[in-house]
């Protein structure tokens, strides 16, 4: 029933999204958790879902030997790598954002709108929809925005934020090189289906 309300809220969501997409970084990343010592050298065909900062992350991942069979068109693969972005706000900074938003709007943009929130880029391995492992990279961001400017080419992250977002691909490659849950999935995959030959490394 909840899903049925998506279209009804799109205008409001779009407005909030436009606001949420305009931020700049101020705090260092949080480190991801320790990964268990299992090697995942070669992965079977797996589907890529995501476009957080266009194709940048996808292209970086595709260069890694283990992701040679990663593809947006692998729509039938039971294994999926999904990359998406969250914006977490507390009640306090939601309120500040809304108050400054109202002030910004009522002064016709003379006063900028200030919004704070924690951006999170998440890499998830999913098997037929179930999340088997998750890697998360966070950055707290505060940004002053002009309501009348909307041609942001940094995907709402600001210049430094965009660099941070790009860097998460390399960090994910490093962090996920040893993933027990994914290794178990690959082992099961190879037990049922012919192992797919791909370069290792």
């Amino acid at each position, binding site marked *: *029933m*909840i*899903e049925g*309300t*998506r279209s*009804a*809220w*799109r*205008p*409001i*969501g779009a*407005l*909030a*999204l436009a*606001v*949420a*997409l305009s931020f700049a970084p101020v705090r260092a990343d949080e480190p991801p958790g320790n990964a268990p010592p299992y090697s995942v050298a070669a992965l*079977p*065909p*797996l589907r890529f879902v995501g*476009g*957080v900062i266009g194709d940048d992350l996808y292209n970086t991942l595709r260069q890694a030997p283990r992701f040679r069979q990663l*593809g947006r*068109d*692998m*729509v*039938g*693969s*039971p*294994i999926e790598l999904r990359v*998406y*972005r*969250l*914006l*977490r*706000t507390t*009640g*306090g900074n*939601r*309120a500040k*954002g*809304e*108050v400054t*938003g*109202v002030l910004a*709007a*009522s002064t016709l943009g003379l006063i900028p709108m200030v919004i704070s929130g*924690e951006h*999170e880029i998440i890499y998830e391995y999913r*098997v*037929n*929809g179930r999340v*088997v492992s998750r890697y998360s990279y966070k950055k707290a961001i505060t940004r002053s925005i002009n*309501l009348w400017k*909307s041609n942001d080419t940094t995907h*709402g992250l600001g210049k430094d934020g965009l660099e941070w977002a790009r860097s998460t691909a390399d960090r994910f490659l490093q962090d996920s090189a040893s993933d027990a849950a994914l290794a178990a*999935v690959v082992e*099961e*995959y190879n037990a*049922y289906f012919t192992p797919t030959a791909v370069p290792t490394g």
Partner: protein
Amino acid sequence: MRKVWARLGWILSLPAVVATAVAASSSAIPSDVPVPKDLKLPADIPAAIYLPASRREAHPLFWGMGDVESGRTLEDEVGEIGPLFFASTHLIDPGDDRSHALAIALHPDLSVDGQTITFKVHYKVFDAEAHPLLDAEKSASLTVGPFSGGGDVIGKLSQRAMLLAFADIVTQLRPDATRFPSTGSFKDRPLDLLANRDKPVSSATGFYFNANGQVMTAAHVVRHCIAIDTAHESQVVPATVVASSDLLDLAVLDTHVATTQYLRFRRGERYELGETVTAVGYPLQPVLAATPTLTRGNISSQAGLQGSVGQLQFSAPIQPGSSGGPLVSEAGELLGFAVATLNGNAIAVPTQNVNFALEARYAAQFLRLHRLAFDEVEPGGKADLHTATTAALGAVVSVKCYE
């Protein structure tokens, strides 16, 4: 033009937004949420809270907005509101060994009626011994208009409804450590009492594959269920998951009801391209009557979508709810079961009857691996429409999932 109106909406909604923003910034129970003044809050007891798995990580604001989602989840809401009323709160997971004095099952629901959005929370409260104490619901509504404000409106509605629900719980029960000792846990207690039995969250299909009454279905059908019912010819039987594989999208359920009407595997588990198949299932429940739907077609390809493994393509029509439904040969042998259909809307191309089933040989391999019984028959037996439909209809069951 839409941008101008959106910006104008912000200006017009100034009073409402400021009021809501101020309320949202508070970390105390808002003054307009009714709680008895003599009640000491937060109550000095731990509360265990159940939220349906499919709702825990829902991000209502940005649904359908692409790769950026609001991180505000119902789990976040409960994590902020619960401590206002109880000394400690935790979300219940299966096998949870943390102790609690009260268990609270929250079942949120969102509905749209014209311009009015309503967020409803149905809640059930149990003591440490799982005795029911309270069963009620609260809701918050908003009529959308130029003065309704921007931002996370649904988040505010859910916050309001949750606050009212928690306030009602403490008002009705007046909890403290003396009245409600912290002796309960869900370590060895099934979660089914927490389920909303008013309606299933999903309904699909399965089939008996051995005389023990074990049922095979698709794993995605039963993924988040805390209670499962199977039904065959009006006989409803509770079931539990005994083995599953997300990779194969396969799950086996125990019903503990012996049966002679189960499907046998074709020895060797091979099939012919173009072979006639019968598909049977319980799609579109409860729109369609609770009787099995039977369709016929053929095996149209030995492979599924790009990147798929272990699947065959078939043309017998299926609909939502057919997942887990058996694909049966003219001789009544199991050839596979339905797991997916091609959504033409998703690829902007009209499609007809492009459906996918897990091949029986992988199901057989799974059963051997898990030492679960099944029968095989030699190919070449009597093959006709009657044999196929009798076998399929005799073994098929509906599967209902409750959270």
